[in-house]
């Protein structure tokens, strides 16, 4: 792989706090190596700003290996930037060319208020999980692991859904800011396992109710969420969620 360096113009969303009115600000960074990650390029910019006595750009990040789900930039109109099945921290600068202008915004959704600059509040996702995204089993209740047999295909599909990192890219990509892909991933993860069966009806009804309460929009079936998802969570999960919801509405007593 050929390495090269580049100079870039960055148009970044700056917003002091939740209530402030934000705006774009232009920045210039030079001698960026194509081997850097996108966030390392931001590190370079922030070091530059601090040395110049300016306010560095606030952004969320932690593991920098694509699994914690904390990074969340909307880059050139796409959550996590131009690469498929990728998080911002794993986006590398070889995706860009010398003198490119890159536009960077926070997730935009009513349910994800901006905290500062590119940081948003995603606690709504935690509250959706609190509404039923679990199996009610206390520590010490368990039977032997192999006493519960799980069909391999179901186990694999459950795992594929459970890979969701809760980053919120699906919401950011959706024109309605719907959280259906996130919720359906959790519903599928648990509904495909025998352990999740006893609570399946209440779980889906309560999680959907919480999702609505948080102000996420309705599903448009456009599939932008699936296209933006760094873990390639499939739209099939939303179909399964709808199926589960319909069944539950028919049989649930409360």
């Amino acid at each position, binding site marked *: 792989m050929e390495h090269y360096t580049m100079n870039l113009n960055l148009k970044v969303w700056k917003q002091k706090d939740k209530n402030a009115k934000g705006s774009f600000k232009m920045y210039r960074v030079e001698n960026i190596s194509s081997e850097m990650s996108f966030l390392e390029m931001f590190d370079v910019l922030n070091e530059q700003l601090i040395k110049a006595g300016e306010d560095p750009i606030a952004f969320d990040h932690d593991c920098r290996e694509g699994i*914690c789900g904390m990074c969340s930039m909307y880059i050139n109109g796409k959550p996590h930037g131009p690469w498929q099945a990728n998080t911002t921290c794993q986006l590398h600068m070889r995706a860009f060319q010398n003198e490119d202008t890159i536009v960077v915004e926070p997730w935009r959704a009513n349910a994800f208020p901006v905290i500062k600059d590119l940081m948003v509040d995603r606690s709504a996702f935690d509250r959706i999980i609190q509404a039923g995204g679990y199996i009610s089993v206390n520590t010490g209740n368990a039977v032997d*692991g192999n006493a519960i047999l799980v069909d391999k295909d179901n186990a694999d599909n459950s795992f594929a859904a459970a890979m969701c990192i809760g980053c919120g890219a699906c919401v950011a990509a959706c024109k309605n800011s719907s959280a259906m892909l996130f919720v359906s991933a959790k519903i599928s993860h648990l509904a495909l396992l025998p*352990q999740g069966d006893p609570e399946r009806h209440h779980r889906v009804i309560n999680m959907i109710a919480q999702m609505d309460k948080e102000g996420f929009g309705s599903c448009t079936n456009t599939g932008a969420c699936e296209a933006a998802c760094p873990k390639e969570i499939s739209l099939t999960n939303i179909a399964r969620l709808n199926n589960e919801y319909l069944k539950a509405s028919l049989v649930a007593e409360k």
Partner: protein
Amino acid sequence: MLESKIPPGSLEHKWTDYKGHCKLVNPANKRKLEIIVVGTGLAGASAAASLGELGYKVKAFCFQDSPRRAHSIAAQGGINAAKNYQNDGDSVFRLFYDTVKGGDYRSREANVYRLAEVSANIIDQCVAQGVPFAREYGGVLSNRSFGGVQVQRTFYAAGQTGQQLLIGAYQALERQVALGNVKMYARHEMQEIVVIDGKARGIIARDLISGKLERYFGHAVLLCSGGYGNVFYLSTNAMGSNVTAAWKAHKNGALFGNPCFTQIHPTCIPVTGDHQSKLTLMSESLRNDGRIWVPKQKGDTRKASQIPEEERDYYLERRYPAFGNLVPRDVASRAAKERCDEGYGVGSSKQAVYLDFSAAFERYGTTEAGIHGIDNPSKEQIISLGKQVVKEKYGNLFDMYEKITGENPYEVPMRIYPAVHYTMGGLWVDYELMTTVKGLYALGEANFSDHGANRLGASALMQGLADGYFVIPYTIGNYLADEIYNKPISTDHEAFQIAEKKVQERLESLMSIQGTQTVESFHKRLGKIMWDKCGMARNANGLQQAITEIQQLKKEFWSDVKIPGGINELNTELDKAGRVADFIELGELMCIDALNRNESCGGHFREEYQTPDGEALRDDANYMYVAAWQYKGDHNWELHKEPLQYDVIKPTQRNYK
């Protein structure tokens, strides 16, 4: 000073007897007792959830925006358990033995035995929670091998086992939040421990959004804040992983155990340049199927594909025929360093070795061709089928490698090099996981207890969950049973005021420096000192130099650091400054500890002490102890020794040949 509180009796009965005799707290009293949990990784989330289920009032804290982000999530390969599902001779005793041996005989027998005992319960608990472990076609759980071990006891979920286990614990935690048993404080960072009459009674936390300091009371405080690998700046840890909570505990009287015991993981993606902010691990499970090699010819610049088989040196298979590519991490790391230092390294930096899957493609491909009934398959067909199998096993790791390096590991071998990954050292705890401060506990990677001088793969997840799900729910009752008479202490108490003032003053003094160098630049310099002089190989001379350099760095930091913004606002640079300040102090202690330990063991390799063929040379007569350091003021520590007794296992030189 150091009372390990190991229960009497034979090894296999200690934990059972302990559980049968420890004090209990009745359900009505549990409701009146408050517990603070700092950190929500595997240890913290599992502890908070389990204690909430028992009825205690729990407050849990994490600095990330959600408990689900804790760095346990990044663990890839798997979790060990003595289930013997493979009928290959595994047992509690073997897991115990492998772990003690893997740790180079520097861990406590009783703790490790307990860990092995509860390991099977962990798998059961996780399955019940809906953790989607890998399964076989018959619906049963699947296992794989890991380093340092000759049985298959590792449970996994592709290359994302930590994620799945953490999501399980996170969901259990969120369930307790919904039930009102746990109150969760995200984007909060612990800044100080509050000790009243010799007992931990609360913490001062900073709300990272508003910058405000807040006081929280607890009848007990649990630190589940992970390891301190970021002292090296570059490590596989998350950017936010830090030692601050443990360090505050240390400065308030908790002894720090074996700080120099650091794990350097052999298979990480090599450093590419100065801009690098972190290193990425390629799971040890890859060593099941990948073969590690370098060219036999020094300074060979040919591409890997152009180097014929007979000119490749599979140095692990050569040096360690019995374990081959699956030797423990410390051994594999040192062997890689040795080859690179000798000039056999590959890639542009020459600080890398190959991890090659072509043999696995062929082996799996041939099997698959048989399964699919393909007679006389072509070489291309075999390789292609084999790649499918490897993709299913490690697909996410291969993708990650390609994103970072821009090279396709299905076509060219991976280039790897060792990197800092885990810290075996940590707060000294007794058998009950209590530190030397009463009511202050340390769980998971934050404590020193179970891995000795080297941790085996797939054992960190096991220990974090063992501590949280199955140990602390029992041992904390033994302490809290006597606390039922103590009503919650008001956070207006003088001790809370003093602690808060101390934090406030420190923040103010950091902000008032207004120097010229950024926090990041100090962190990088500290990391370089640590990596060069207290890394994979250490010697007395280098360590002495490192101590002087770190002391100098500390002075410079406190007189010339530049932090923008203010205190009462979101200020990520200020957050980082506090963490780096603590890392600098810790770095000094690590070097002191490494200098004190005049032997090589596990990950601690002192160049002066090695066997003729370059293996670690222990000195059991003089160093078979846990070095527990007591903070006595600036640059000043007192060493306490906890002798290690081996009643069951007879320590020998570790042999993986």
